[in-house]
């Protein structure tokens, strides 16, 4: 349904060009939940924003974003507007700053409904209340006239989800929808998104840096590093048999099922900066399995095994044991 091909987004001018995402390609099938994981700054949010064309204002976007076989990247603003918010909706990462502090929550839901449905004013109001109910905001009817600052972070995140769901999108771009939440509430929200995806056959791209969240919700996972996809595959494959050294390192540094107070596995070094990224594989400087080729050439995402794709010249298997 969504087919992203060779998407690259860069910021700044020729002299100081920052390539935030570099040649990213993936697809999302109807009803599928795709997890996008990777550490901070790896370009997860920019990927989502670039799909919707939001980065065009301040960056250069290349490549194709095919939505139902139409390239959104070359669409006019007017056409884009018809897709945004109605067919593809997005939840932003920061619930604190993503709602307009000066407008009531009711109005912010309403303007979405107004833009994409033909409902009457009162019907819209009814629908708004329904939506708030759906995301578990108590006494929703009374809270329509409240302002964002009167909600807690978690509730704001839910309001955002309500807005995103307002016009029953076919694809939901969820940028870390639960970072601001406590684990107990996180669970409620994830359940909600899973439910909707199942019941309404809604596709989801779920950005997260918490592998646990990805494990529990996603069908497939795409791992990002330094603006590139390094590994894509079904959730179990990626979590059980990761092949890219970065994915492996990421998984191993999670302190689960290790002896308490033992030394954790940690990737050496630090993530690359956008300003001077290595010529070859971005991960090469930190990679325990790097080869000379890795420093000079850039690996492409390639089919590896039954259902995974890996961008690595020297893919590993944990069982082979040569990385620890």
């Amino acid at each position: 349904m969504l087919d992203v091909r060779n998407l690259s987004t860069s910021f700044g001018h020729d002299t100081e060009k920052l390539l935030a995402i570099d040649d990213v390609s993936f697809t999302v099938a109807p009803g599928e939940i795709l997890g996008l994981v990777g550490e901070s700054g790896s370009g997860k949010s920019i990927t989502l924003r670039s799909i919707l064309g939001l980065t065009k204002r301040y960056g250069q976007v290349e490549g194709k974003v095919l939505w139902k076989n139409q390239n959104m990247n070359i669409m006019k603003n007017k056409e884009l507007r018809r897709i945004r918010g109605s067919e593809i909706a997005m939840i932003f990462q920061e619930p604190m700053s993503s709602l307009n502090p000066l407008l009531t929550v009711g109005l912010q839901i309403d303007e979405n409904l107004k833009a994409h449905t033909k409902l009457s004013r009162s019907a819209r109001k009814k629908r708004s209340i329904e939506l708030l109910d759906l995301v578990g905001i108590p006494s929703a009817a009374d809270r329509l006239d409240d302002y964002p600052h009167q909600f807690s972070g978690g509730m704001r995140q839910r309001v955002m989800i309500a807005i995103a769901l307002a016009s029953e999108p076919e694809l939901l771009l969820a940028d870390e929808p639960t970072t601001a939440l406590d684990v107990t509430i996180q669970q409620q929200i994830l359940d909600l998104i899973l439910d909707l995806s199942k019941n309404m056959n809604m596709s989801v791209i779920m950005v997260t840096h918490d592998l646990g969240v990805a494990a529990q919700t996603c069908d497939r996972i795409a791992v990002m590093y330094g603006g590139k996809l390094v590994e894509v595959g079904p959730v179990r494959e990626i979590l059980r048999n990761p092949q890219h050294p970065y994915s492996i390192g990421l998984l191993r540094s999670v302190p689960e099922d290790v002896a308490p107070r033992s030394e954790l596995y940690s990737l050496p070094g630090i993530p690359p900066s956008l300003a001077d990224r290595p010529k070859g594989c971005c991960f090469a400087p930190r990679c325990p399995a790097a080869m000379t080729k890795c420093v000079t050439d850039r690996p492409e995402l390639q089919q590896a095994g039954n259902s995974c794709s890996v961008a690595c010249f020297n893919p590993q298997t944990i069982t082979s044991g040569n990385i620890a």
Partner: protein
Amino acid sequence: MTYAPYAQKRRFAVFKFFQRMQPGFIVGLTILSLSLILALFPSYIAPYDPNAFDFNAVQSPPSDLHWFGTDSLGRDTLSRVIWAYSVNMQMAFLATIFSLLIGVTIGALVGYYRGFSDVVFGRCVDAIITFPFLVLVIAVVAVLGPGLINMYIAITVVGWVYYARLMRAEIMAQMANDYASAGKVMGYSDSRIIFRHLLPNAITPVIVYWMTDMALAILLGSSLGYLGLGAQPPEAEWGVLIAEGRNFITTAWWLSLMPGIAIVITGFGFSLVGDGVADLLRPRG
């Protein structure tokens, strides 16, 4: 986004510094440097004695001899405008520096300790900003008598409040950063935390404000000069010069035009530099 590229090369830091400067900033710096030269060495630059009468050249229009013409006493306008640079640049500095020092100190202390001092401070600030600036300055000048020194005092009496307010807000904002708490936890003294840790980080907007305030001081000083409350004749000061030329604005237009242009250009320089400094000091990444 919290992610900041940290491993930036510092090799070309100086070069980058200049590269980052906007053209406006460079223009501003040039204007100010030239102004400063004129202000510091008027005696070498001015072609004539600014106060010498020349009855043979009364109100003569700009010419080869007198580029900016002469006034009704035959004084050379160019020389007077140049000499005024020392007065007006001095004004920009002296009228603001004490406000800056007092305001920064008080603002920093109040912002750090808050509590009752903050309540008292708040009321004082409220009371002072309730007066239009000029009204209060004029009133104070009237109390002390006209003249440059008294003008500086008057502007300081009123002006420190603006610095203090800014400083207080900045210090309070900086206090929200953990390094202030860290300083306390490290067992550092209050004065060390305030003046070594918080102040250097909080001072930037104050410096930026200072730049614009210096431009304002020139405007204010010349306004007071114009009203007869600032610099005293025969001292050449732009406001005074304009006031002197006021009556001849249609006949001997150069008398008021030339100092006017000098004010505008210098003020322009200060504003550009102020903007440029703000731009440079703005945190990036």
